């Protein structure tokens, strides 16, 4: 009960940090999608780039998040504002599932459908926009979904470099050895992750081809 009272008493701050959290996650997911989907398309059509791109995205994933935030801190323009830096780091982390699912989704399109399409005289771009992407959309979105859920969790660590978000409560709670404060950050973050998961999942089903 203490926890709920704490949240109620600090509701304006909880809301503010939640909004910051959403800002970090939303913007980074947007950037990752805008970069990841085209990259996924590129590596389908230029298989030679497939390995280096996926390896690159994989390596980024293996860097511990705290270390990545730290590495980026001294970078000139980026280091000026912690949220910029956090958004860049989160974008980098979100790339892998989006690139990989775009690639997998498009590669999963029935080759007979593509051959028929080519044989009918669809250009490569018509094939991409009318056939490949619509058929791959649910696989691509499930990559976005994974990315969002990961980002919500990772964004809590951004508080360590002063980027704000619900991580503030977690770090403050840790310093104060006060579980109520930790939970005030952790519970809304978990709810955000669930909500994002359900939301993108819904979108995924809506856009699913028959």
């Amino acid at each position, binding site marked *: 009960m203490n926890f709920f009272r704490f949240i109620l008493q600090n509701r304006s701050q909880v809301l503010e940090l939640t909004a910051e959290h959403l800002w970090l996650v939303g913007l980074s997911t947007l950037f990752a999608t805008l970069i990841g989907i085209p990259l996924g398309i590129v590596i389908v059509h230029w298989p030679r780039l497939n390995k280096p791109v996926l390896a690159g995205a994989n390596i980024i994933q293996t860097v511990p998040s705290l270390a990545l935030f730290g590495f980026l801190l001294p970078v000139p323009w980026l280091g000026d504002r912690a949220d910029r830096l956090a958004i860049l780091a989160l974008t980098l982390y979100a790339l892998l599932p989006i690139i990989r699912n775009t690639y997998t989704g498009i590669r999963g399109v*029935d080759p*007979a*459908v*593509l*051959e*028929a*399409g*080519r*044989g*009918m*005289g*669809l*250009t490569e771009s*018509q094939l991409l926009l*009318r*056939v490949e992407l*619509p*058929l791959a959309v649910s696989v691509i979105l499930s990559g976005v979904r994974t990315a969002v859920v990961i980002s919500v969790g990772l964004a809590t660590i951004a508080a360590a470099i002063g980027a704000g978000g619900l991580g503030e409560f977690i770090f403050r709670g840790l310093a104060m050895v006060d579980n109520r404060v930790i939970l005030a950050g952790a519970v809304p973050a978990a709810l955000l992750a669930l909500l994002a998961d359900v939301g993108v999942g819904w979108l995924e089903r809506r856009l699913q*081809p*028959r």
Partner: protein
Amino acid sequence: MQSTRAAPVIEFRDVSYQVAETHVLLNLTLQVQSGEILALLGRSGSGKTTTLKLVNRLVSPTSGEVLVNGVPNLNTDITRLRRSVGYVIQEVGLFPHFTVARNIGLVPNIEGWPEPRIRARVEELLQMVGLAPELASRYPHQLSGGQRQRVGVARALAADPQILLMDEPFGALDPLTRDELQREFLSLQRKLRKTVVFVTHDLREAMRLGSRIALMEAGKLVTILSPDEFLRSSDPWAAAYVKAFGDRLESIATEGKS
């Protein structure tokens, strides 16, 4: 049989196609006349599908040239070329996220036909291939195999191409449906008079549908014969086919030819 003096619709001039060191096709010279059905007969790997794909440039020759209406097809814009050639494959390859109507109307749609004209054309084609108009709003997964291939044929005919390329279109169907589609295809062809190149490994199908049968083996054209000539041919490959498919071939050869 057409006069061989008429300009061929499709002509292969000494065409070879090579992948790495392997000759998929070797020095193929072949003419297809207007309105005929040329059956490319051969076993898997004989080069018959490659021959078909050379016409609409899904494959480009290593040497030699393919002429369509007297023009080397490498000189024609690839999109124009493909849209003027209907293409039907065994797996059908219908777009699973489009209705039957959108599948059939896709090329007209891309070509910018007005909506009412597309709708009328789809209706006309459905009737032509023997499908009920209600099927227009269905999705491919809601159709039977035979219905799907009918849609495949309708889609290939949508922009009224002069040439139709068919790669074992009835190969995956059960015998009754196949028989039905073969019969209907022949009667459709009597009306439409397309120039058809038809790939099959089934001698019965080749005899039944083909005006001429081009027998291929290991990337080479063995011989081109009419169904009747094929039956009596002393060519060892042709004879082997006749032997493998057994008797009652004579009745097929004479059935339903115009």
